[in-house]
């Protein structure tokens, strides 16, 4: 059951991701990204990681994609199809990506080809909460500082200088 669910969500994710990197309209790409991220969240769910799935939808779909759309708006991105979407290196980049995929895929299959994921009890949010606030509390706090720093950095970067 979960396998089937995962397979469906995965297929959607891959298809949407292909659209993200190939779409001629940038806004469409952003919207396809939403689909991809949602599908990945579905995958998380299929892996009984509901908390991560929810965070994924909240943060990515809710925040990041909105941010991206705002950025597109601010940079006056054309909504019509672009003639020169990719650089001249794109066939080369595709080849590299394919080689990398083969390499990694082969490695993965070699290493974990016989492993199976046993079904785990649902409701792991509790366990994650405990884990974060007991074992990982220090990295968590450092992460909050990092977020703060990123916040300040973003403000500093995007602030217009006086003379502009």
């Amino acid at each position, binding site marked *: 059951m979960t396998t089937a669910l995962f397979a469906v969500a995965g297929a959607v994710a891959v298809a949407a991701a292909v659209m993200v990197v190939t779409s001629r309209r940038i806004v469409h790409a952003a919207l396809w990204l939403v689909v991809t991220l949602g599908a990945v969240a579905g995958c998380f769910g299929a892996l009984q990681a509901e908390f991560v799935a929810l965070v994924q939808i909240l943060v990515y779909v809710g925040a990041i994609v909105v941010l991206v759309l705002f950025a597109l708006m601010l940079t006056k991105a054309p909504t019509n199809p672009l003639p020169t979407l990719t*650089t001249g290196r794109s066939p080369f980049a595709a080849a*590299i990506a394919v080689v990398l995929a083969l390499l990694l895929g082969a490695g993965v299959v070699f290493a974990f080809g016989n492993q199976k994921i046993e079904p785990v009890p649902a409701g792991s949010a509790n366990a994650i909460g405990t884990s974060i606030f007991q074992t990982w509390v220090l990295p968590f706090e450092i992460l909050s500082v990092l977020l703060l720093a990123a916040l300040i950095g973003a403000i500093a970067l995007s602030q217009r200088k006086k003379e502009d």
Partner: protein
Amino acid sequence: MIATVWRVAGVGFSLLLVLIAALLYGAAPEQASFLNSQIGDLTIGFAVRTDDLTVLLLAVVGVVATCVQVYSLSYLHERASSYHALVTLFTAAMATVVVSDSLFLLLIGWEVMGACSYLLISHYWERRDARSGAVKAFLMTRLADVGFLFGIFVLGVGAGTFRISELDPARISPGVLTAGTLLLLVGVVGKSAQVPLQTWLPDAMPGPSPVSALIHAATMVAAGVFLIARLYDVFSASSTTMTVLAIIACVTMLFAALCAMAAVEVKRVLAWSTVSQLAIMFSALSLGTREGRHAALFHLVTHAAFKGLLFLCAGVLLHQVGSAAFVVLRRYTRRGVLRNRLRVTFLTMTVGLAALAGVPGFAGFFSKDTVLEAAWDHAHHDGSVIGWVVLASVGLTASLTAFYCARLWLWVFFRSPALAGAIGAFEVDDPMADLEDPDTSKLKDASWLMLGPLVLLAVGALGLGYVDGLHLNWAIALGSTVLVLFGVLPAYSLWSRGADPRPAVLERELGVDRAYHGIFVGPVRWLAKLSVLGDRDVIGAYVRAAGRSGTLASQGLRLLQTGNVQTYLTGAVVGVVALAILAGVIAR
């Protein structure tokens, strides 16, 4: 002030040598070594010895050096301090050679003499001929000294010692002995200006005349004779070396005498005659007999006296007249002043020339007869070819010597009746010769400080022949007298007719000098140029190219810096993929 100190030191040191020689006379031979150091199983250090040979040579060096130092007091005024210092240093070096029992100490003296000779020849360094003559003298002797050094190696390593008194020919293998002595002979040939290294000595004549007397007649050039006499056992043990020595000596004595016959400058005649007389000593040594060695040393002593005397006389001519060229002297002679005004010089020079020519009764006659006698004995009793060859060439040389002595004496001091006062045969040297007559009113003989040594040496040139004890072989004496007459008569007849035929080939001294210049000097200069260019354009070019290629490579690498982040990133990803594949391959 400094000059005075050096003058006093110079004279004092030469007198000290005479004193030492007198004190050592008759003393038992002794040896001492000092400052030794061990190199492997060889000992390198210094050693001195005294024996008859040492005493003899010390006396010769001391007396001639004293004469020269005293003579120079009056002869030389400019740069006197360096001059006297160098002459003293030279005397010390010669004394070192004479007393040395270590081949290395001998070499030190040997080469310091060469350096002093170089510095003294270039005493008048503002003159071009002095400069080039000095360089030539040093380089040719230096070249020969390389052979000398190698000879020391061969003999020393072969015998296991560098002590002269320990060199035992019986303990050295014949091959090593021949090689070693031949190499030593190279040094001797260079130092004594024998063929084929003879050209430096005539060119060394621009040096001050006293220096020519001391270094280039009496002592340094005779050091070669001394060396062979010192190592006589070793040399005579190798018949090859002795044959080579005989050939060299015979060729040299004839060659040099022929050159002397065509020279038109007093000092140059004397220089060639020195070469020739040294060759006579070598020919005596090459006989390989005790008589030969004795004859050579006897001739060395008498030659030191009369040749020193002759050079000092030439010095007087130079000092009082200003030149020793025939053409200049003739201008004085035709007015009849030279002989009368320079009476002491004329008389002593006559004695010297007579001794050189071998006029009976003079020292040179006796010593040359000893050589002839030794050659005769060797040829007659031992049936040696060398003996015959030496006998023949010494006899021939005696004739030639008499010829050039008579020629010099007559042309310099006497008006030729046939020319009725004209300069005659030498005017080609100077087209202005007849136009200008020298002012002869101020011409007078030199001071007694200069004439004293002349007289002393003239006494030697007269009397030294009798020191050795009179034992004349009358047949040989008669023969040599006839030979001398054969030489004198043509000279007289030519002079009286006012002719001085000088074959061009002899005037050019058989073209040896020019040939050497073409064979050695030119190519070396060319090679030097090549080497400078090679350094600049070949080796330097490689270095510059290395630097240049570094710059070029860096400029090429700069092109990768496109400024495009994606390009960089592509490169990074390619690198990661490549590394991953590589890691997989290696792990496999």
